[in-house]
């Protein structure tokens, strides 16, 4: 059954190639069918592969091709089948399929429909390669591939320069992270001589021969790669800008799958990270800082997608907190639940934008629940799920992260709880401003308002269902014992990732759960109070007076900071070089070099004066000399 795994990335690739080369002239529905059908086939195979792992199959590697063999460096194109990769396969293909279906409706009127579906298929192909690769090198191929697809899809509406700028920004910032990843890979290779997971982490204990600062450096550089891809401070600025792409892209790439590649990579390297306490601490603090930063910025944003984007940044931060604290399986758990509800929220926001005719500012919305009932209900479910109100998916995963923090570090626990509270607040703010109150948009927009077509709402419903039940795969002990299903995911992942050391008793767990629920509910009440009851509206940008508020609206001025400390000096440096070093030093050298042959030429030019007699005379004299020396 494992052999089938190579089919999984094949279907999207074939879909991409077919649509690219033969898609011209086919109807849009057919193209959409091919695109989503390819993903669906992958999904079916994924389920089959997943089942083998579920029934206790051992992690195996399926080799497809020899790729690079150079001395001791031996890399195959090979796919790894183990619990971690199969569970990723499942939600990538599953959520991916739903988003493909949704795209058919969302992008139906776009002239670049074929291109869009092809790119999406291509993206899924690379994402699957990333997850399935049996070594860092193969993973890196997928890593770069998804980066490429992300670039192409952010800049999908390339006629608008703003989108291209956003795409370039995403690409460049990702490159910085990739450099870290490459350095990390190099350190690992030069120290151990291998980049294959099964050789590096064969025993499931510590990384074979990495020790001392090599270990820390390797882990930290790998984490820098993860920071780039998963938008952690200070490389997070590209993700909100990436919302320039079509909404399904935001849902698939910038919420559910690609941005969690960093989490996957760290989880995959869990042996490495658990052996390095320094790296783990770095991961934890970067994660919690990102979480707080994202959550606070999300409080003041007025663009529906920007709010969700900063929410994503914040949630990713929380996942890294879990990783840093050693709870790898819990991070993966949150990745899965987050994929469900964040994809749902993005698709919901897409539905709203669709209905509003492209409007994204929540200050122009309001009272949409009567126009878009399905969207409203599903969006509410997503909001509850992310806010961490039981028994929806977000509650279980987030609660466990907080629980882990509680056991390890009280400071982190407090901050994580704060993030949780802020999450509930800004999500309900978003919800109330969008769906309640009265409509604040123009008359035309109100007239235009309609519920989205079935092809868009059905994925919403499915994802809403998953958001409700998704948490059940990781019941905490307190609940789990009663249903004989505690920590299923942890046990499933045992073979691949390092398990956290947890000895919390049921009582503590229960108290924490209650505290978390209370916090979420209180935040929700505040939001209700402010935005539902008092209908307090977000201020227009120029009305803001509070400096704190202004800082948040301007995202802590991080972009401006980068502009000042990186772009400006580089510009000035190159201006300086162009003005002084180039004309004086470089040109001077070149002129010196050219002066030498010029001088020689000026000297020898006298010989080549065109007078044939001179030449003949020289020849005859040469002949004489030659003969004299010979006789």
């Amino acid at each position, binding site marked *: 059954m494992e052999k089938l795994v190579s089919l999984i990335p094949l279907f999207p690739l074939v879909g991409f190639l077919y649509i690219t080369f033969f898609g011209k002239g086919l109807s849009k529905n057919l193209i959409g069918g091919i695109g989503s059908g390819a993903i669906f086939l992958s999904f079916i195979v994924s389920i089959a592969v997943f089942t083998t792992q579920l029934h206790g199959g051992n992690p195996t590697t399926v080799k497809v091709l020899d790729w690079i063999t150079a001395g001791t460096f031996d890399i195959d194109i090979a796919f790894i089948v183990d619990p971690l990769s199969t569970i990723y396969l499942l939600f990538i293909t599953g959520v991916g399929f739903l988003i493909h279906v949704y795209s058919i409706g969302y992008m139906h009127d776009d002239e670049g429909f074929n291109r869009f579906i092809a790119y999406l298929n291509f993206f899924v192909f690379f994402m699957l390669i990333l997850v399935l690769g049996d070594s860092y090198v193969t993973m890196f191929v997928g890593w770069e591939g998804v980066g490429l697809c992300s670039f192409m899809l952010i800049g999908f509406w390339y006629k608008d320069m703003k989108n291209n700028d956003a795409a370039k920004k995403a690409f460049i910032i990702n490159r910085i992270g990739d450099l870290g990843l490459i350095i990390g890979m190099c350190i690992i290779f030069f120290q151990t001589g291998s980049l294959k997971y099964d050789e590096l982490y064969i025993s499931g204990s510590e990384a074979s021969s990495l020790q001392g600062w090599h270990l820390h450096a390797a882990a930290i550089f790998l984490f820098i790669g993860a920071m780039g891809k998963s938008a952690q401070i200070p490389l997070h600025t590209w993700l909100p800008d990436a919302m320039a792409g079509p909404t399904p892209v935001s849902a698939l790439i910038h919420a559910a799958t690609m941005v969690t590649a960093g989490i996957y990579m760290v989880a995959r390297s869990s042996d490495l990270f658990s052996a390095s306490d320094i790296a783990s601490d770095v991961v934890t603090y970067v994660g919690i800082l990102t979480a707080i930063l994202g959550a606070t910025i999300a409080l003041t944003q007025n663009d529906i997608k920007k709010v969700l984007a900063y929410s994503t940044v914040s949630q990713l931060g929380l996942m890294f907190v879990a990783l840093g604290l050693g709870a790898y399986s819990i991070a993966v758990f949150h990745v899965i639940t987050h994929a469900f509800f964040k994809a749902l929220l993005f698709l919901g926001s897409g539905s709203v934008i669709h209905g509003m005719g492209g409007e994204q500012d929540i200050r122009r919305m309001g009272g949409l629940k009567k126009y878009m009932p399905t969207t409203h209900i599903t969006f509410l479910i997503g909001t509850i799920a992310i806010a961490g109100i039981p028994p929806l998916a977000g509650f279980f995963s987030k609660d466990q992260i907080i629980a882990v923090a509680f056991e390890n570090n009280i400071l982190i626990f407090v901050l994580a709880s704060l993030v949780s509270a802020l999450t509930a607040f800004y999500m309900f703010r978003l919800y109330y401003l969008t769906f309640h109150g009265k409509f604040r948009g123009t008359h035309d927009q109100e007239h235009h308002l309609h519920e989205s077509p079935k092809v868009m709402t059905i994925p919403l419903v499915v994802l809403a269902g998953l958001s409700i039940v998704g948490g059940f795969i990781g019941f905490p002990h307190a609940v789990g014992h009663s249903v004989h299903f505690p920590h299923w995911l942890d046990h499933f992942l045992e073979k691949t990732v390092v398990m956290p050391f947890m000895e919390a008793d049921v009582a503590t767990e229960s108290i924490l759960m209650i505290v978390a629920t209370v916090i979420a509910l209180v935040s929700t009440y505040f939001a209700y109070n402010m935005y539902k009851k008092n209908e307090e509206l977000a201020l227009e940008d120029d009305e803001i007076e509070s400096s704190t508020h202004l800082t948040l609206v301007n995202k802590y001025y991080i972009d401006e900071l980068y502009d000042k400390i990186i772009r400006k000096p580089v510009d000035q440096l190159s201006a300086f070089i162009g003005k002084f070093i180039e004309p004086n030093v470089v040109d001077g050298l070149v002129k010196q070099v050219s002066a030498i042959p010029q001088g020689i030429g000026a000297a020898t030019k006298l010989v080549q*004066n*065109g*007078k*044939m*007699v001179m030449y*003949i005379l020289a020849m005859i004299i040469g002949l004489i000399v030659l003969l004299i020396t010979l006789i």
Partner: protein
Amino acid sequence: MMEILPNVTINHYLMLSVALFTIGAFGILFRRNAIIMFMCVELMLNAVNLTLVAFSKLWGGTDAQVFVFFIMVVAAAEVAVGLAILMMLYRNMHTTSTDVLDKLKW
């Protein structure tokens, strides 16, 4: 001992050849007209050919004569192209004097 004809040794032929060669060289040195210089070159080539044939006679081998044959071939080719160039030069410059024709490009 080194006779190749009755009472004529190889040295006689070499002397003759030297005389012709030197006359050719003088011609090239003193005349400025490209055509006559060209003819002097032909004369020098023939002086060399003469020694080759004489040595062929001395040694009784065909190689030197084949060599002469090839020299003739090359001379013919050279004259064909050289005279064409001279015609072009004359057409543009109205002279064949090498005193005037001392630039690569006009």
